[in-house]
Structure formats: C-alpha cells, structure tokens
C-alpha cells in the first residue's frame, strides 16, 4: 500500500531522516516508535507531503506522492494528531464534515456518513452541535478520528494521537477505537514513543533512532529477538 524508498530529510546540516526504506501492506497497522527527535514524525509527515523529502521516493497505492499536489493528496489520506487537532470554531458536525466538504460531497451523504461515524464511535448525537472545548479529551480524540475517517481514506496517518490523554483514558480509548472494523480495513501508520501502545496496536513496529531504522518486526519478534542493546534497552526487556 505504501512504499518508502531511500527516504532522506535534511534540515540544514542536520539529517532528520537518514535513508529509510519501508513497505507497508494494505490493512496493516505499522507503528513508528522511538524517542523524540528520532525522525519518526518527520517520516510520517513526508507520506502526506506536509514535509517534502530531500531525496528518496514515496508511493501510495503505486502512485508517487509527488505526482499530485499536496492538498489533493492529503484529502485522501486520513490525518489524526494529538488531541484530535480539532478547529475550536467548528462544531463537531462541521469537524466531521471537513474533508467530505473539501471533496464536494452532497450534504445528504455527509449527514449520513456523520451519523454513521458518531454511532460507531459511540458518541451521543447531541455532541454534533457542540464545540470541541465542550467535550472531554477522550471524546475529542474520537471526533478527531471520525474526521480522519469521514471520507473513507485507504490510509490514515496518526501522530501521537493519544498523547494528550491520561493513561487510563488512553488505554480505554485506543482499545475501543482500534476495535472498530472500519479501522481494521484501513492502512494505519502511527507514531508514538509509548512502548506499550506500540506493542498493543502494531502489526509491525519500526524502531527508529537518530533518523535511522534500528529494527523492523512484529511486536513478538522485537521482544524475542532484539537486534541490539538499543532495542533491548528501549523495550525494557
């Protein structure tokens, strides 16, 4: 689904992402794991061209991302960030409708889809007319995900999506969200520095350090056969 080839990103003399190559299959949940500044978020943002690579190539569904302009590309890739990244002046209904509207969906289709998502995410219908500030952190996170999924994108990128939640809510919300069928069919790339989150959600984990990939594997593989001392140390085994 996503092919990343020899990806490099330099900021001045600093190399943030150093020769990363990856292949992500359809419906897979891939977790980019590492300390802050390891290049995981930069890698993620190059997938939807929020950041342009210095060299290397990314293909989504076989098409090079550079062949389409940024906004068009991003409308077909879901994007979830910390605390939902909701616009304070949009009601929840408007938030969920954001991308379908950008794609010029019919308003009846938008409404139908919004109801469906609210229902799936177990949000009461009354939230539709509320503003993000009136919601709890967990609810905001769900709305953030609903916004990302609204236009049924084949790929969803998540950047520390649960970072703003307390540990209890975080566990609760992520279990619930990742239990959704809708998300199971979608290719997800998730960035986190939380090891337990990675172990719980990932089909495969990519552990990064200083812009380079240290090890790629299923959670079990990483735990059973850590490639080196860094992996052992990071996973705390």
């Amino acid at each position, binding site marked *: 689904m996503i092919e990343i080839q020899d990806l490099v990103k330099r900021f001045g003399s600093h190399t943030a992402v150093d020769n990363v190559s990856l292949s992500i299959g359809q419906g897979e949940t891939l977790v980019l794991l590492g300390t802050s500044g390891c290049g995981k978020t930069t890698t993620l943002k190059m997938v*939807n061209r*929020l950041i342009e690579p210095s060299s290397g190539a990314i293909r989504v569904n076989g098409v090079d991302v550079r062949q389409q302009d*940024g*906004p*068009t*590309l*991003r*409308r*077909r890739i879901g*994007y979830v*960030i*910390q*605390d939902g*990244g*909701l*616009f*304070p*002046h949009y009601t929840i209904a408007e938030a969920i409708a*954001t*991308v379908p509207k*950008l794609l010029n969906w019919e308003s009846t289709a938008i409404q139908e889809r919004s109801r469906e998502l609210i229902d799936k995410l177990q949000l009461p219908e009354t939230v539709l007319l509320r*503003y993000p500030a009136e919601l709890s952190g967990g609810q905001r996170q769900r709305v953030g995900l609903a*916004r*990302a999924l609204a236009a049924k994108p084949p790929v969803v*990128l998540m950047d520390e999506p649960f970072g703003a939640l307390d540990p209890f809510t975080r566990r609760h919300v992520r279990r619930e969200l990742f239990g959704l069928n809708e998300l199971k069919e979608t290719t997800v790339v998730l960035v986190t520095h939380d090891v337990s989150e990675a172990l719980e959600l990932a089909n495969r984990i990519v552990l990064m350090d200083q812009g380079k990939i240290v090890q790629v594997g299923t959670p079990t593989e990483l735990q059973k056969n850590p490639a080196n001392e860094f992996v052992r140390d990071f996973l705390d085994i």
Partner: protein
Amino acid sequence: MSDFFAFVRDHADKLLEQTLTHIGLTFVSLLLALLIGVPLGILISRKRKLASSVLGVAGVLQTVPSVALLGFLIPLLGIGVGPALVALFLYALLPIIRNTYVGITEVSPLTKEAARGVGMTDNQVLTKVELPLALPVIFAGVRTATVINVGVATLAAYVAAGGLGEFIFSGIALSNVNMMLAGAIPAALLAIGFDFGLARLQNLSAKKMRVGALAFVILVPFLSAFYLLPGRQDKLIAGFAHEFYGRSDGYPGLQKIYGLSLRPRLIDQNLMYEAIHKKQVDIISGYSTDGRIKAFDLLVLTDNRHAFPPYDAAPVVRQVTLDRYPELGPTLNLLAGKLTDSVMTDLNYRADYLHQSPERIATDFLKKGGLYQVPKSGDRPQTVVMGSKVFTEQYILAEIYRQLIEGKTQLRVVTKTGLGGTQICFDALRTGAIDFYPEYTGTGLLVVLQPPAEELKKLPMQPDSVYTFVKQQFLEKYQLVWQKPLGFNNSYCLMIRREQARQLGIRSIENLVQYLKK
C-alpha cells in the same frame, strides 16, 4: 446647564450635520484602513521577515502628533477632506495591521497543521481557519482604531473638513464653554457608543461573530456615506478661523451689517493663508497687517461700514512710570504715525517670510526713519519693563521700542516677551509686573473694558472715537495711559487673492456681497 441645552437646541441642525460628518470621517478612514490593513497584516503573517519593518513604520506613523501630521499633509494634499482622511487612515492602520498579524500568528500551530493535514489549500487554511480564529483579535484592533479615529477626527476641524471639532475649537477660541461641550460631549458619546457596540460584537460566539462581522463590513460603507451627503456650494468659498466665525465682531457682525451670507468652512487660522494661496478657498478672515498678505499677494477688502472695530496699535503705559521717567512718554511718541498698515505688513513679512531677526528689522526701520541712535555707554541704573504678546508683530514692536529707548535715553529696557494673551498682559501691567506694552484699541475696548451693549451701540466704530473712549476709560479706571497711535490698524479683515479681485471687480465687502447676490 440649561444654557448648554439651550445652545444645543438652537444649533441642533448644525450639531446633527457635524455629528454625521464626524461619523462619516471616522468610518471612511476606517474602511480604507481595513482595506489596506487586513491584507497587509495577512501578508506579514506569511512573510515574517517583513513584519518588524511594516509594524515599525506603522508604529512610527502612530506616534506622530496628529496636529503635526496634518501640518505635514497640507502642503501635499491641501485642506479639506484629503489630509483629514489620510491622517485618520494612518492612525487606524497600526491597530488593524498589528491585530491581524497577531491574531493570525497566535492561532495554535497544531490547529494550522491539522488544517493542512486534512487537505486544505493555503487559501482555505487562511479563510476557513486562521481568519475566523483571528477575528476576535482583529475586531479588538478595529475597536481601538474606531475609538482613536473618533478622537482624532475632531482635529479635522483644523483643516476645514468639518466634524464635531468645529464646535470644540470655536468654543475654545471664544471661551464659550457651552459651544465646546456641544462638540465634546457628542464626540465622547460617539467614542463610548462605538466602543460599546463593537465590544458587544466582539463577545459574540464564534458563529454569531462571523455574522456580526459581516454586518459590520456592510454597515461601514453606509456610515461612511454620511460624509458624502452633498452640501450647498457658494460662488466663492470662504475659509474662516474658528474664532472669527463665532466672535460678535467677526462673521456675525458682517452678517448683521452687510447682510453677508456664506457657508464658510472652518479652518485653523495659520492654515487659512496657505489654503487661499493654493486656491482651495477664495475668501479668508485675517488680520490686516499680516505679512502673508504681502507674501501671497492678497487684497484686504475695504470695510466702508465699519463692521470691524478699529484695532489701532499704541503703547499703554502705567501713569506712575511716566511720572518717574518723564523722558519715556515723548520717546514713545516719536513713533506716532510712523508705522502705517503697509509699513507694518512689510515688517511682518520680513520676519515671517524673509526670516530676518526682529533686531535687524527694528534697526533697519529706525535707521530709515532717522530715529536710530547707538546707545551711549555708561551705567543704566533705571529700568523699564516692557511686555509683549506672543506673535511676530509684537516681537518686532518690542525690539523697536527697546532700541529706540536705549538709544534716546539712559533707561535700561527689560523685555518680557511671550505674555500669552491680552488678559495676561493687562494683568501684568496693572499689577506693575511690566511698565508698558503695545495694545490695540479694539482689544482694549472689547476684551478689557467690555462696556455694556447699549453703551457700545452708541459708540461709533471709528478709529478716533474708539481711541478717545479707551484712552479716557483706561486712565480713569486703571491709571494707565494710551500713548499716541503708531499708525496702523491691525483689525479683522476679509481678504481675497488680488488676481481674483481684479477679475471679479471686488474691492470692498460691499462689492463682495453684491457679487454673491448676483
């Protein structure tokens, strides 16, 4: 207080017109500032490198005192609406640019990233996310700009652009508190009202606010339109000083005695001359010995019916001083009749336009009249103190007297120039702080003596009769002696450009009235 309401009632139409002009001025300039300021604010939020220089320039403009800014704009734009609008526009610019910039840059980076992340184009990020979120801050800027503009718009009255400043400045010039308040109170109410209204708008919820902002944007041109209401136009445009317009011996006197009827624009008296020179007005009020009459080739219209009281200049001396220094009186009278209107106008012209020092002008004048004498050396234990008011003519007279007295006598002359107004000079003289100063008969009559109206009506407004009257009254009431008149009459007058006067065949105020009636 009842006086105040009576004044407002009597001048309701004028007040309404001024208020509408005031609102119009405020909002036309605000509209211009919005049209320029908001895009500029957006631009510098995109190109941060430009931000400090753009905000710096706007900030500097903001610190220029408003009167100075108007003074600077007049040579470029003349008088009237132009400089007033530009000045107001410049003052409104900074709060609008700055708040647009701050409002946009303070939108959380996470929100902006999310907006790009869901696939908005740069323009969509701006119009759907950044501007709506910046709106309360931008509105706060608009609010500040509006309140500033309501205040600064009073100064429009200096440059004949109208507004509530007309009452305020005329009121100050005439010491008429009711008139002043009739301008100041509505101006304050406008400021408070707009501030309150915009504050309400600012506190609305996000959605209503967008509706409110839209309503405001639609409303602004409407409010601006007040300014464009057509006014009646005269054949000749008059620009009068505020004081002249309100004083009974100024324009009201002309209306009564000549039946003159104009719709004068009110303008600062120093800018009046510039305005007639630049042909923005055709008739101005002024003083008959002003140097600018010569500099700008103006013609003083003759006043056959004596609507303007005579203002013959003569030194006024304390009786005790004359008794103590018997040589002083005759020395002062050496100048009697020597300074005619044209001579005095010329001396003023040299000071104001050729920038000669009063010392040099005085020496030249005395030499020419054969009155100059190099002061004899030796001790001068006896001192006379001379006062003067604060304008060119009085500085020159003071210097002439000093050189004359020190040349002809052994008295030492101490000058106290810069005694603000008539009242200050007169009080200083009466209390003995000064021994003499040059005064004008009309001022002595109308400002110092202020005889009751019936008595004034009986007095013919001829130079001789007024001089005799004030001389006798001053001596009786205050033991102050008017010496012989110097020869010039610095009275109010109407003047027009000499060239236009020739074309239209106007030489006197009577001619002018006839011409306007045609």
